[in-house]
């Protein structure tokens, strides 16, 4: 569904992405992990066209995204730090997004909006919201248009355990529907029961991309965090 081929991106001297190639398919739930500054967010942003790669191509459904923008209607994106116009209310932000992405064929998915209780906060201004509530708004917007691909950047950071559980349930339900889900996260144990594939990045390079079962049998560990840790120990002398 998403094919990344030899993508390179430099920020000044720093190589944020160094020859990264990835193939992501439908029905997969991929965890994108790696240390801070390993290029996870840059990779996600280049898939969204927010960052333009220096070289390499990214295909979405076999079509190059370089000069395309329509493909983004199949993607729901939840940013790491949700930044919204400060003097709009929650309700206005949602109305704006709905009117921008208006499409009669899409059935709006407002499950999360209700489950997070945002309907009761709809006339609060964005500048008064806490970090967690902002995250909730971002999550709801990502799921709102029922997209085929969900890209979630640190989805559970800043959410309380209840909200985090609601979000995980929701991700699981969407996975069952056969969507492609890409998650980046630091907290590995959170992802244990969700993900099917792991992509590990370090210093802008792709270290490995494997199904989780293969990873478990290779390392002999059942816990995801331990499996990753044992691989990291092996790769770093």
């Amino acid at each position: 569904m998403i094919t990344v081929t030899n993508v390179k991106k430099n920020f000044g001297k720093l190589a944020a992405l160094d020859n990264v190639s990835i193939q992501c398919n439908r029905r997969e739930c991929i965890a994108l992990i790696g240390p801070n500054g390993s290029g996870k967010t840059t990779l996600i942003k280049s898939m969204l066209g927010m960052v333009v790669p220096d070289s390499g191509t990214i295909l979405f459904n076999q079509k190059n995204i370089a000069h395309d923008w329509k493909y983004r209607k199949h993607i729901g994106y939840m940013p790491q730090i949700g930044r919204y116009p400060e003097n709009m209310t929650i309700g206005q932000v949602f109305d704006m997004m709905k009117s921008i992405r208006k499409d009669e064929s899409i059935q709006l998915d407002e499950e999360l909006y209700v489950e997070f209780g945002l309907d009761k906060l709809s006339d609060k201004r964005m500048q008064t919201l806490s970090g967690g509530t902002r995250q909730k708004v971002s999550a709801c917007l990502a799921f709102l248009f029922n997209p085929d691909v969900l890209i979630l950047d640190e989805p559970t950071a800043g959410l309380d355990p209840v909200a985090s559980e609601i979000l995980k349930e929701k991700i699981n339900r969407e996975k069952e529907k056969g969507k492609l889900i890409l998650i980046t996260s630091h907290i590995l144990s959170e992802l244990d029961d969700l993900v099917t594939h792991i992509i590990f990045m370090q210093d802008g390079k792709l270290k490995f991309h494997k199904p989780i079962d293969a990873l478990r049998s290779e390392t002999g560990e059942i816990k995801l965090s331990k499996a990753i840790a044992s691989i990291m120990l092996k790769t770093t002398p």
Partner: protein
Amino acid sequence: MKKIIKFVIIDILRNKIVLVYTLFLLITSLSVFNLEDNSAKGLLSLLNLILFIVPLVSIIFSTIYIYNSSEFIELLVSQPLQRKNIWLSLFFGLSGSMVMAFFIGAGIPILIYEPSPTGLMMLAIGCIITVIFVAIAFLTTVNTRDKAKGIGTAILLWLYFALLFDGLVLFILFQFSDYPLEKVVVIISALNPIDLGRILILLRLDVSALMGYTGAVFKDFFGTNMGLIVAFTTLLLWCVIPLGLSVIKFKKKDL
């Protein structure tokens, strides 16, 4: 595209600064026309005020506004929207509301007290200058990520167009006063939209006699219909070129 323009305009109208700007223009233009017994004289005083204040407010307000809407831009870029359309909608929303503010603040008094061709010309030039400086602000912001640096650049650009440029021209004229520079001066004046606007109005106000031989050359050139068309085309180019460059840059920008 229309929707984003609508959102931008609503957002700006909620912002008190534009309201204050409109009121300021309204009060100054009304008082200028009421102080002078001759409304042509009032127009002249107003001209100097407008050519000073309008570019300043247009460029500074636009720069700050674009920096403050970086969140909004980021949000829109991840949506199925064309980058060019996002940027142009911002531009049309911003320049539309600034022109509206100018029209209400200065345009209505001009239409009341001096509804002559000269008055209309001044109205047109004020509107074009507003759009030009909004476009320059777009070019500045797209090139600098840092807010303080961007606003600093905007202030310097205004300083250059409003004050320094005239100084430079005077300096050149004095240094090369032995040579016939009158035709060159006509070309140089096209390099600054504020000067171009000032010359166009002054020529109609019959004070150009005070400008000596250069004034006569100006009158020869800008006084004709051909000259007028050339002048307005130049002003239009001053809108289109910075805007076009900023669109090209914004399409490739990392957010």
